[in-house]
């Protein structure tokens, strides 16, 4: 705890603004949040939700990074730019509305492609959260974050589906547990008292690459069981990630028919390559995967935002390491593939 100097004290103004969350996670967590610089890559619907959530929470600074222009699909979930005409850079178009959420946070933009950035660029940040990135780039960023002790997050939303991924390296956090104490015998009154017990915990994360390269091919009952128990959304979102890798863009409604065909092809190829049966992804999955539904962005962005807050504040057990949301089946599941 290096945060005891008077400069780091939360001001009365901050205490007033952040009152309702300080009552939840405490002053120390708030101080840690205020020291954190975050790089947010990808400002589509999910990115906007994450930006909103962590700017409101009172981090120190956020860099909004996106090299793409606002497009037609942004109007269904990207509330910073939903009425901006397509064409303007998405990060720049988002910045002023993002800043209005909290004047105490420094909001900057970067319109470069993250794939072309030098490693040193990324080392300036405490947290990197990457959306709209193909798996190869995610794996590179994750590795770089691990080596430089940066908390790494990834996520995307496709229609009704979404996922988040966290790699916090070796992460220490405070865990609080409320114990109910029974009254002692003979005290006459039957009231119970609650006591909060705080303990320091440690958790070690896995790299994204290891998760994605997991070998599913063993022909054993144990592996069949694992495949059954793995959320279908893991495989579904990998189809979309693969599309992004191959085509350098997401499937989009302006090329609905062609992209649908391509998604169906990728489904079969990918599952074949992984060695898992085709039935893990329903045949009609593509009907629910175009654009980003605003409520799905809110759900997945809420989870992702809270995981970033947890990581920075070192308070509470983080999710380890994927979260999958499927709005078709109502599932919201946490899983780790290499378990």
């Amino acid at each position: 705890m290096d945060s005891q100097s008077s400069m780091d004290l939360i001001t009365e103004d901050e205490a007033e603004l952040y009152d309702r969350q300080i009552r939840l996670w405490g002053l120390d967590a708030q101080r840690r949040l205020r020291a954190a610089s975050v790089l947010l890559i990808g400002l589509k619907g999910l990115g906007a939700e994450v930006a909103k959530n962590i700017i409101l929470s009172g981090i120190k600074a956020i860099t909004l990074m996106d090299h793409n222009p606002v497009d037609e699909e942004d109007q269904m979930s990207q509330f910073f730019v939903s009425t901006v005409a397509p064409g303007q850079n998405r990060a720049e178009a988002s910045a002023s509305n993002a800043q209005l959420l909290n004047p105490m946070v420094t909001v900057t933009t970067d319109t470069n492609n993250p794939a072309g950035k030098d490693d040193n660029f990324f080392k300036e940040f405490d947290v990197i959260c990457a959306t709209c990135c193909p798996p190869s780039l995610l794996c590179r960023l994750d590795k770089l974050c691990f080596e430089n002790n940066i908390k790494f997050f990834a996520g995307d939303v496709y229609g009704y589906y979404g996922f988040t991924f966290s790699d916090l390296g070796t992460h220490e956090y405070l865990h609080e547990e409320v114990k109910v104490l029974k009254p002692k015998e003979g005290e006459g009154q039957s009231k119970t008292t609650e006591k909060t017990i705080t303990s320091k915990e440690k958790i070690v994360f896995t790299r994204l690459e290891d998760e994605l390269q997991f070998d599913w091919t063993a022909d054993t009952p144990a592996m069949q069981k694992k495949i059954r128990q793995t959320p279908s959304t893991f495989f579904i979102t990998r189809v979309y990630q693969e599309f992004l890798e191959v085509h350098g863009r997401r499937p989009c409604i302006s090329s609905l028919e062609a992209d649908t065909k391509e998604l169906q092809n990728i489904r079969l190829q990918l599952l074949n390559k992984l060695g898992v049966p085709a039935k893990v992804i329903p045949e009609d999955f593509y009907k629910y995967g175009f654009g980003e539904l605003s409520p799905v962005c809110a759900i997945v962005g809420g989870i992702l935002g809270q995981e970033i807050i947890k990581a920075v504040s070192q308070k509470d057990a983080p999710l380890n390491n994927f979260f999958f949301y499927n709005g078709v089946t109502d599932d919201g599941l946490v899983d780790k593939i290499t378990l």
Partner: protein
Amino acid sequence: MAATLNGVLENNLAESIIKSRLLMVGAGGIGCELLKNLVLSGFSNIEVIDLDTIDVSNLNRQFLFRKEHVGKSKAQVAKESALKFKADANIVAHHESIFSPEFGLDFFKQFTLVLNALDNRAARNHVNRMCLAADIPLVESGTAGYLGQVTVIKKKLTECYECQPKPTQKTFPGCTIRNTPSEPVHCVVWAKHLFNQLFGEDDPDQDVSPDTEDPELAAEAGQAALSTEAKKDTIGGIERKSTRSWAMETGYDAEKLFNKLFRDDIKYLLSMENLWKKRRAPQPLDFQELPGKGEAMCTGVMRDQRVWSVQECADIFAQSLAALKQDLYSKGDGGTLVWDKDDHNGMDFVCSVANIRAHIFGITLKSKFDIKSIAGNIIPAIATTNAIIAGLIVMETLKILSGNISKCKQVYLNRIPNDRKRLLLPCALDPPNPKCYVCSEKHECTVMLNTQKVTVRVLQDKILKGHLNMIAPDVEIDDGKGTIILSSEEGETEENYDKVLSVFAVGQSSRLKCDDFLQNYSLTINIVHVEKLEEEKEFEVVGDISQFHPTETTTESPVEGHTNGASKSKATEEEDDLLIVEDQVTPDLVSTGRKRPAEDQQDALLIKRKKQESNTEDNEDVIEIS
């Protein structure tokens, strides 16, 4: 907008979205997030109702509001901000109470469905009844800290909001507050009562003087402490006068008030020796000789975050007393103050008084920050939980609009995934409770009370409005003559208010027909006469006559603990059980007046555990938890 982009949603759903008319009740934590999701999804006919105005402490999560909006209408500003997402959305904002008669049955009937984004039970009860009466689906929701839930209510198909009894609000016996506090909250309640005694509306239930009718004193029957004669003499007959008029006579003199409340009254309490045989006896304080006197104040740590010394408390007591006196005098003759956690002086007063009393009784002192939580009934609230819940509300809404209401679920947001990996826990919706006094065919309940003690006013204010959630009840005795004892029309039955029920021949097995025109709701109450209920209760409501067992003790309502018949597993209770966070503090603490009651029961909905749906195809996923 999702509904206007071809290929995102199924055609029939997109059409339904565009055509539908939604009512969103509440524009706070969940409401701001919800309005954003709705507009972006393509809903374009939305009415928003919220009575509240924007406070600084909202801004960490209610992202449609900014600092320059503080003090303005939430509904109005939410509308203006949401129009920036879609300029041609048709949003109507009402800066009004949902209980207002303008939002009657005809108003509700114009909507396809209603979405609640509320933070208090009274409003939820009311909207529940309005939606049942109008027969339109209601999506209900609530959050508290990291936890949240969403559920769907549809007449005849699912449980309604009132099908299962909610845990009653925790109250403390008067004698605990007045004589034998043992927890900080007891001192906070007492401090708020004192505020009302000194500055607020007179409420005989909020007496702050020593209680000579403490049942624990019964053993001392005949002793001096019980005798009213002795009581009169003890402290110069102070109890005979109202605290208010006595304080006024002294000109709200801090030292005199302090010494009466914290020295003389405490000495008097000490004379009730029976109370202190098994308890630590309180120690009276004198204004001039306080612990912490002359000590330097601790600086550097925020004033609200540290625990004040007793001397500091006394100083702050004196300062806030003087300031509140000025506030009171500025209201003119007969004016009163309403306590509000966000009023600096009122909060300082309650904090200093509660801590001084805590010191006297050997109870842990607390910081103003902590006391504000207790006194203001503040439930912590964060943006992320509200965002997730608002997203889930829309997902349920989409199912309803697709014509798949039977696929709707009750969904819980958990803090950690359960042992089946679920962070979001979907549960099947339960069918209506056939004995529900709100949504069943037969609206009946049983009330146990003493007909010779309970007045018509208590029947109206505490039973019908306070407990049975009516807004403007009319009551007729089902005696063949149709005697009306209470009318919601002004001036018709006021003369009955202070008469007890037995005056109208209401006794054992009488039936009262209660009707609320606004809610389009009627209820028959079966009266069970009892001489006395435990814990000084004035009445007890039992869900259905068949559940009433005369032999049972009345400590707990017989309908409490009525679960869904699902067996409870201990393991899941410990790990997965969500906290029941609503109304966790005594109703005494709920502020009234300028702000809505329970303003800060931030979005909390009753959170109860249900059995998880087990409709997964994969057998290994079929699990039973509680």
